[in-house]
């Protein structure tokens, strides 16, 4: 069986086929939530929380098996997988915004945050005051989650690999970290995802068992009902539900039908789903269909088509060539660029941002 791009970047020994479908489902929930097809307020954020838990689980699992010498390769893989689609999306955003928005210092500020992967820290707090100053009126505010994930890719290796000897891989450490993350709402879904991965590595028979998945599925159902009934704090329930769902779907096996395409288009769909809405609005508003279900349907078709095109045309070839593109120098460069961008973004943001 030939290895497909996503299989290469995952741990080849463990493949989770249901995650392919989960990713596309989550990207669709975000798209439909933003276009008000799904009218349940927390739907988009909940989908992002599940994305976070998924990342924590997968990346945590990968890093638990790596040494410091493997890290440049890890960063290189992340760069190819995350940066390229992100830069394409950012380019499309800037191009569309240049045609439509007035360019002022605030506009540059938001583009800068997105370029340096720190928008999640400095962008969303300014939504209320500066929505109109943001590129395309904040239509790509959802980039915050990609920025948060990028920061996770920089911090997680430090904890799980560099400080592995000093408790970075211990269950106790990740359990305590999980409690703090949930209580103080500091990206709890990611932390819970890593904690679950740490437990999986330490106790593969328990966490990989069918009973564990069944238990997790039942807990996910209970917590989802709690979320729908708005019974207990969303901030606590959502990450717990997310990790329960991820564990429930963590059965290993071979890739299922259309898994590669389905998984592949989820990321560009997540990034670029504003484009279909803009195009459909532009085309259908003059005939009075701007707020119609027909416009929403056209936007969905456009978004899925664009995502499939971007994946097949740009990302897939790159992922297939990732091994041949790799060199230690490029890997080190991607590592330095990753840390450098976030560091510059953080320092500049601290000076520019006035909302502390």
């Amino acid at each position, binding site marked *: 069986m030939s290895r497909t791009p996503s299989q290469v970047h995952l741990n080849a020994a463990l493949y989770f086929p249901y995650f392919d479908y989960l990713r596309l489902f989550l990207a669709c929930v975000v798209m439909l939530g933003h276009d008000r097809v799904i009218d349940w307020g927390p739907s988009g954020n909940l989908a992002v929380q599940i994305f976070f838990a998924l990342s924590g689980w997968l990346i945590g699992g990968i890093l638990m098996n790596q040494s410091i010498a493997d890290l440049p390769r890890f960063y290189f893989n992340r760069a190819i997988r995350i940066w390229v689609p992100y830069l394409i999306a950012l380019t499309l955003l800037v191009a569309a915004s240049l045609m439509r928005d007035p360019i002022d210092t605030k506009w540059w500020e938001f583009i800068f945050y997105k370029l340096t992967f720190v928008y999640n820290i400095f962008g969303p707090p300014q939504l209320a005051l500066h929505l109109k100053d943001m590129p395309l009126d904040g239509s790509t505010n959802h980039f915050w989650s990609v920025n948060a994930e990028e920061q996770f890719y920089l911090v997680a290796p430090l904890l799980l690999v560099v400080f592995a000897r000093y408790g970075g891989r211990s269950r106790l450490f990740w359990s305590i970290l999980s409690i703090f993350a949930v209580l103080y709402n500091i990206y709890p879904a990611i932390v819970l995802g890593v904690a679950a991965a740490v437990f999986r590595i330490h106790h593969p028979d328990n966490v990989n068992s069918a*009973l564990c998945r069944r238990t997790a599925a039942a807990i996910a159902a209970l917590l989802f009902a709690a979320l729908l009934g708005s019974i207990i704090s969303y901030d606590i329930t959502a990450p717990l539900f997310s990790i329960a769902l991820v564990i429930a779907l963590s059965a290993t096996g071979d890739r299922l039908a259309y898994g590669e395409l389905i998984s592949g288009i989820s990321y560009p769909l997540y990034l670029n789903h504003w484009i279909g809405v803009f195009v459909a609005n532009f085309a259908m508003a003059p005939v009075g269909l701007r707020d119609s279900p027909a416009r929403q349907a056209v936007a969905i078709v456009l978004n899925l088509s664009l995502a499939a095109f971007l994946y097949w045309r740009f990302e897939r070839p790159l992922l297939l060539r990732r091994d041949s593109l790799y060199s230690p120098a490029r890997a080190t460069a991607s590592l330095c660029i990753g840390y450098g961008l976030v560091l510059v973004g953080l320092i500049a943001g601290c000076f520019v941002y006035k909302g502390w």
Partner: protein
Amino acid sequence: MGIMRLLHSPLAPLILISFGFLALYLPSYIELARTTWQDSDEMHGPIVLIVAAWSLFQLRHELIQSHVAKPVWWGWAALALGLVFFIVGKLLSITVMHVGSQVIVLGALALIIGGFKTLRLMLFPLVFLIFMVPLPGNLIDSITGSLKEVVSVFAEQLLYWAGYPIARSGVTLTVGQYQLLVADACSGLKSMFSLSAVGMLYIYLIQHKSSGRNILLAASLLPIAFVANIIRVIVLILVTYHFGDEAGQGFVHDFAGMVLFILAVLMLVSFDAFLGLVFKRFLK
């Protein structure tokens, strides 16, 4: 590292599921404690909950052993149904729905984790939890009226046979110079519900091996509660007739409720003893 060891023990799935269950139902219990359980007729609610939780805890070792390799798909269907009941009940503030859903949800979880064997193991706490569900208002209204009528008829007939000067018009009884109204509370409906709960607990604790004896005991619960309530009403009529209106409506009126409870339990125990003799002599 005690928590770590617990998480790796076979108990872990049960503990985690319990947390999920509590996340869903704890707010409902808090709501009940602030509202429904304040009512003297619903004070059995927390006791039912504690007893059900205690009996589940007692079953923990059997529950651990009863994991099934393949899931029972009925369990997932039941879980979906229970959660729909819960959400609709919660969103529309229908207490009977969201509190009642816990029986379905708990049964579904038993099926999912351990299959029908676990469901059978958990039968008592599941059935017992039904007594925690507050009766819906319209059901109470529809039963109370006819139950009051029946209680009045029995009380009138029995006292008439005993030679007391008693007459009845609907649910109003005239005895001597006094006129007494059989009120809603005197219908005994809620006490029937409470007594049935106590009776079920008795049957569970006694644990007779004969299922026939258990079934007969369970079947006797409602008649016993009914008879006990008629005795209570008769006692109150007699107190009023012999000692005056104030005596009948004062402390004795409230005290009679407690007497009713004790009386019903005594009747149940006596009936059980009688069944014991019958089963020993004839059904060896």
